[in-house]
């Protein structure tokens, strides 16, 4: 499969995530769009790791080039899990204080 197809797919997914983060006011939806962007980047990392493997396995059949990319995806997932737990705790605290999940209430942080 040509690598361009994967790049276009991931760019489209990432842009959908950006549009969602810019247009919605519900904090939880914004957070979910950030998760969507994480996943687009993860898919692109895996596709690139297989691209480098395809280039390297022409000369060496038992090559393991590209396993670093897949491990980075693993670490991104780990960090995303930690980030979600803290972020949802912050959202619950916001909801408890303002009784709303409107992201514009976070403007009050500047005073």
């Amino acid at each position, binding site marked *: *499969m040509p690598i361009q197809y994967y790049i276009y797919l991931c760019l489209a997914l990432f842009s959908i995530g950006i549009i969602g983060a810019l247009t919605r006011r519900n904090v*939880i939806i914004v957070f979910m769009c950030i998760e969507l962007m994480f996943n687009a980047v993860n898919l692109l990392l895996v596709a690139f790791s297989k691209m480098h493997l395809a280039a390297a396995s022409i000369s060496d059949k038992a090559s393991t080039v590209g396993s670093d990319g897949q491990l980075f995806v*693993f670490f991104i997932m780990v960090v995303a899990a930690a980030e*979600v*737990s803290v972020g949802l705790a912050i959202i619950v605290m916001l909801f408890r204080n303002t009784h709303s999940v409107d992201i514009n209430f976070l403007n009050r942080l500047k005073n």
Partner: protein
Amino acid sequence: MSTTEILFFFLSALALFSASMVLISKNPVHSVLWLVVTFFAISGHYILLNAQFLAIVNIIVYAGAIMVLFLFVIMLMNLNQQNEPQKNLWMKLAGVISGGCFLMVLVSLVRQSLDLKSKVAMTTSGDIGLIKNLGRVLFNDYVVPFEITSVLFLSAMVGAIVMGKKD
């Protein structure tokens, strides 16, 4: 058209459609469920790329753990669609236009790239994505980041408990 291509285009269409439905849905619970569909489509892509470990981890961690956490929070807050705040139309239009400009710039960049021409991602073969190989690399070359990750998890857990408790 081979089976791989048919599967690729089907999974891509499914991922894009369900990702758009995440934005379009008014009800947050529906958004979460569409996001789960997106994650399953991306896991299908991982399987297509023969990255089986990441496919399973993606389903378990993202679709299993993180999305259930989102559902818990949404149902805890009892959010329904009546009281959901909306941005005004011009802000939405500006957001869509800026996202579209971003997409356009990057797509034109990729189209012009000479380096990416005739590069192929290896599908349905190549065994670097199997647990055996990834585990060997993880515990040989990436032991220190793996251990630091455990400290990160501990601090995230403590932070979530401290912020979540009633004060």
